[in-house]
């Protein structure tokens, strides 16, 4: 699942080539660029807003309700359209599992 060794100049990690988000290894200011590796190629994108260390950034366009993929697996669904370079977090994605609030009689 994980790569064994990471390169020192990489500022974010994409866990699987199927992912549509990267995890930031340094906090970014709006307009700051970051480097990631996808399919063995180094790519550069620009952050649309300031994003803290360890948080996720979109590396692809993600439509509302589309699955968000990290580790090559589904981690949730988008609750808004997300552009490449946007912060991906609780404000624009939600979990799919353990959603008693969406069950009949749930506390919405």
């Amino acid at each position, binding site marked *: *699942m*994980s790569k*064994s060794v990471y390169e*020192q100049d990489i500022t974010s990690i994409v866990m699987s080539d199927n992912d549509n988000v990267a995890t930031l290894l340094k906090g970014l200011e709006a307009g700051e660029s970051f480097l990631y590796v996808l399919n063995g190629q180094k790519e550069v994108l620009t952050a649309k807003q300031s994003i803290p*260390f*360890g948080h996720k950034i979109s590396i692809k366009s993600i439509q509302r309700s589309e699955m968000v993929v990290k580790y090559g697996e589904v981690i*949730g669904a988008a609750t808004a359209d997300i552009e490449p370079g946007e912060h991906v977090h609780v404000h624009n994605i939600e*979990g799919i599992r353990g*959603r008693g*609030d969406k069950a009949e009689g749930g506390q919405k």
Partner: protein
Amino acid sequence: MIKLQLTNDNKFWGYRRPDGKVGVRNHVLILPTITCATQAAKQITELVHGTVSFIHQHGCAQVGIDYEQTFRTYVGMGANPNVYGVVVLGLGCETHQARSVAGELAKTNKPVEVVSIQDHGGTLTAIAEGAKIAARMVQEASAQTRELCDISELIIGTECGGSDACSGISANPAVGAVSDMIIEHGGTAILAETTELIGAEHLLAERAVDDRVAKKAYQVIKAMENRSIQMGVDIRTGNPSPGNIRGGLSTLEEKSLGAANKAGSKQLQEVIDYAESPTKKGLVWMDTPGHDIEQLTGMVAGGAQVVLFTTGRGTPTGSPIAPVIKISTNTGIYEKMSENIDLNAGTIIEGKESIESVGTRIFEEIAKVSSGKLTKAEVLKQHDFGIWRIGPTF
């Protein structure tokens, strides 16, 4: 699969118990079976060097599977091979009778005695009686010497708490590498926190040794998920926690996929209930909640002699009877909370160290700690204990 280079002879210095199991500590446990006896138990530990105990709120007005799970946890704590002998301390009238717990513990052939506050005529008399027995046990324990034991005799508990987005990239994969290594040497690694495997269960079920084990993996996940669904709430209101979310984890599935990395790459041998002892060597999944202390208690009651605990947000967690080796997921928290954290895996995301290399460091630390080196949680007397209650109190 990650292969690790061995840097020692896979041995450690442990204490052989009458039942053949090996402990890495030589504690005398004052085991209160009821909340009413916990204060007296604590007093005994203050009087007698070499004793440990724990505070809890349980042991009375419990029924059915909830009664059984609490009972199993008490017995498991006393039976853990890190414990030389046990003073079981009861009040007298409680549902979890000290004599019943002691009766089960006697099967290990370790020294076990019972003290009852009501039978002995009050708190002070019970403390005095318990302290006298404990003092004798501690001196006997001190005469036992460590002997050379094989890593295959270890059950290693694995845990992540105060996780951040680095957990699944650095420390958890490193613990997974250690889990593989322990298993390759004939030992056992416990994966737990069922809640934090929701969304990753298919990856583990694929590795199950047979269909029955795969089916049980799905069953425990479904039961855990259904508890939140029956309450009509989004599980995210409790897990991931506010600290997890500040650390960059957005959903429970994301946290789970990172947590599952602790399981390494080996075949899943069995799925056991909370506080049960593994019946097989290799990778074992214990059904526990994600709550750090309840999970830790379940694994230790199941016989884990050493626990590996990864953390991104930092945590002081420790057990009264098992050393907990704390491993940070990022260098920032390692430096900030160095008084609590033993090892740093943050070097992985800095590109300074490989997962294998950090795994080797953790493995070497297990051998040192199993031979007597104290972890930071032990030095700070972090004696956490919490039982996963699965029924109401009556």
